[in-house]
C-alpha cells in the first residue's frame, strides 16, 4: 500500500525502514469531551488500548512504530533504540506532548514520520515546524500518507527532508516540485530569514 521509493534529501532512494501500522477494524474510541481536548480530537480517534496491545512489533530490523506503541513498549525497546533501529510515526491529530515528556532527547530517533490522512490537512506543517524548531529534532523527518508533489515545497519549508509520495504517483515527477519557488518571502524552518533580510531590495 505504500510506494517503495521515497525522496530523501532531493533524490530517490529505496526505503530501508519497515513501517508498522496500527491494527484497524476495532471500534474507535472517542476521547472524553474535555473542552480543550475536544477540539484536538473531534472526528479523530487516538489509538485504543486494544489497538496498541495488538500491534505486532517485528523483532529485527529498522522499524517505524506508532508513537503510542513505542511509548507503551519503551523499556523493552531501549536496546534496539540504541542500535538506531527504532523510528516513530505520528498522525496529524496527535500532539507532541507525550513524546516530549517521555523522551529527554528525541534525537535518539534516526527518523520521525508524520502521517497525513488527507492532503488538505495542514497540521503536518505545524508539527514539522515544532519538531524542528521548538524540539530541535535533527534527524530525518518524513511525510507520508496522502502526500502529493504539490505539498512538497511547503513540507520542505516546514522542516521535512523525506517524502513518501502517495502510491500511484511518480516520485521522479514529484522531485521537481521541491524547486517550485526560488526565493520565498517569509522565514520558515529551512530558510530562516525573510527575503528582505537575505537580499538587498530596493
Amino acid at each position, binding site marked *: 500500500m505504500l510506494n517503495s521509493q521515497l525522496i530523501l534529501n532531493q533524490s530517490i532512494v529505496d526505503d530501508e525502514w519497515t513501517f508498522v501500522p496500527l491494527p484497524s477494524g476495532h471500534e474507535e474510541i472517542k476521547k472524553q469531551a474535555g473542552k480543550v481536548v475536544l477540539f484536538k480530537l473531534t472526528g479523530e480517534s487516538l489509538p485504543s488500548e486494544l489497538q496498541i496491545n495488538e500491534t505486532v512489533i517485528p523483532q529485527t530490523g529498522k522499524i517505524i512504530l506508532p508513537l503510542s506503541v513505542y511509548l507503551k513498549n519503551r523499556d523493552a525497546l531501549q536496546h534496539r533504540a540504541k542500535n538506531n533501529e527504532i523510528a516513530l510515526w505520528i498522525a496529524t491529530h496527535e500532539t507532541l506532548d507525550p513524546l516530549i515528556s517521555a523522551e529527554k532527547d528525541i534525537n535518539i530517533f534516526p527518523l520521525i514520520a508524520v502521517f497525513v490522512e488527507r492532503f488538505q490537512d495542514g497540521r503536518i*506543517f505545524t508539527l514539522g515546524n515544532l519538531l524542528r524548531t521548538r524540539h530541535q529534532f535533527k534527524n530525518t523527518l518524513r511525510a507520508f500518507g496522502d502526500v502529493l508533489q504539490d505539498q512538497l515545497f511547503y513540507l520542505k519549508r516546514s522542516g521535512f527532508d523525506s517524502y513518501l509520495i502517495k502510491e500511484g504517483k511518480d516520485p521522479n515527477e514529484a522531485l521537481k516540485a521541491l524547486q517550485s519557488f526560488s526565493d520565498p518571502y517569509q522565514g520558515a524552518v529551512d530558510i530562516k530569514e525573510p527575503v528582505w533580510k537575505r537580499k538587498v531590495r530596493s
Partner: protein
Amino acid sequence: MYQYDNIDQTIVNERVTQFRDQTSRYLSGKLTDDEFRPLRLQNGLYIQRHAPMLRIAIPYGLLSSKQLRKLADIADRFDRGYGHFSTRQNLQLNWPKLEETPDILEELSKVEMHAIQTSGNCIRNITTDQFAGVAPDEIIDPRAIAEILRQWSTFHPEFSLLPRKFKIAVSGSKQDRAIVQAHDIGLEFYYDKEQKMAIRVWVGGGLGRTPILGSVIREHLEWEHVLTYCEAIIRVYNLHGRRDNIYKARIKILVKALGVEEFKKQVEAEWLHLKNSPNTINEGELKRVTKFFTQMPYEKLKDQDDAFDEVNKNNKAFASWVKRSVHPHKQKGYRSVTLSLKPHGLAPGDATSDQMRIVAELADQYSFGELRVSHEQNLILADVKLKDIFKLWEKAKAHQLATPNIGLLTDIICCPGGDFCSLANAKSIPIATSIQEAFDDLDYLHDIGELELNISGCMNACGHHHIGHIGVLGVDKDGSEWYQVTIGGKQGNDASLGTVIGPSFAAEEMPGVVKKLIDVYIKQRNPEERFIDTVRRLGVNPFKEHVYA
C-alpha cells in the same frame, strides 16, 4: 503604489508555471478532481454555475490604470467583456475557460498581478480602507503593513492548508472602514500614549452561517511583532481548529468554544516562542515598503476653488453627486471621488471592459494613474483636484459611473447570487435591481439619507447582509426562493449584527418591504437621525409591526 522587484516578479512567474503544470496534469487525468480542487482554489478558480469563476487578487484594493486596462483586455479576450468587483476588493470573472486560466494568469503577471490565495483554506487577500493614505482621520497609512502582510502570507508554508479560509483586515484610521471586527484577524492601528504606533488585535470575527463580531485579544501590540503575533494566532488555530465539519472550522468557532481568555492564553504562550524570531519586522523594512506609498506629487493648492463652488451652486445634478461621491482629503485642494458601480437596474459591482478603460483614463488624467476598489463594490479615485471634479463628473456620467447614490439606499452591496453562484439559495441581483427601480426618485433617495442595504444569496454572506442597516438573505423554502430581512446591522467602530424581523418574503414583495421599513423611519426619525440610529433607538418592533401588518 507598490512595485515589484525581481523577487516579487519571479514568485508570480513561478506560480504561473506551477499552475500551468497543475492544470495540465489535471486535464490529462494525472490529478483527480479532489486533488486538483485545493490547488485551483488557491489560485482563485472555482467551478461555478455556468463556467469556472476566476477571482483575481487586488491586494488591499489598490490598482494602477495600467493594471485596470489589462483587466479590461482580459475580460474581453477570455471572458464576456465585464468583471465583478467583490466585497473583498477582488475582481471576479464569471466565464473564463479552465484551459485558459494559466494564460490569464500569465497575462496578469505582466502587470504585477495574480490570483494567488484568493480562495481556498489559506490566508486570503489582505483588505483595508479604500481611503488609505488620503483620509483626514488617518492615523497611519495601513498599506505598507498590508503589503508586508501580503508578502509574508504568500505561500506561507505552515499556513497553506488551514482548517478553513483566513481573512485579515487592516485599519489605520479613527473610523474603521475595513470592518476589522468581521475578520478572522482585524488589525487596528493607533498611536499609544507615547505617540508610538501600536496595534489593537481583534480575532474571531466573521459573517457566514454563524456571524460573530471579533474580540480584542491584544490591546497593544508593537507593530514590529505584527507577523509573529499573527503566526502565533494562526498556529493555535491550525492545530486546534476543527477539521471535521466545515461549518465549524473557522477560527471564530474555536475562539468561542475556548473562550477568548483561554484562546488568548494559548496564543500568548505560543508567541513567547515566536517573539523576536526572524519574521519580526524592523524599521528599515517598514521604511522601504512605506516609500512605495508616500504621498503623491501634490500641488500646493488652496482648499477652495471658485469655479467648483460656482457649478456646485448652479448645477443641481452635479451638486447632489458631489454631496455623495466627493470625500474629504488630507491634502488641501484635493478630494477623493467615488465612482458608483451601482447604476440603477444593473448588477451591483459589475463593470464592463469599456468602463474599466474609461476609469483607467480618468485615473491617468485626474488621479496620478491610480485607483482603489472599496468593499462596497465601488471604485475610488483618491487624489482629484477640486478644480478637476466637474470635468471628471461629466466624463464619468457619460459612462454610467456617476449615479449619485454613494452611501444611499441604492448603493447596494450584493453578491452574484443564483444567477452565477452554485451555492446560492436564491437570486440576489434581481432583488437589488428591483429595489433600485423602486427608489428611482433621487430627491427621495437623498432625503432618506445614509443607508446601507446588503444582499446575500445564501448564508455564506458574501454580500455582508448581517452588517447592512437593512440586510437581505436569500433562503430556500421547499425549493422556492424567499428572502429574510434583518435590520440594525452596521459596519465600523460600533459594528453590530442585524436582527431578523420575522418570516421571509417572496421576491416580488421585497421592494414593498423596504418601502415600509423606510416609511417607519421617515415617520419616526428625529431631525438629522440616520436610519440605523432610529433602529437602534426604537428597536425592531415598530418596523416589524408595520411590515407584517
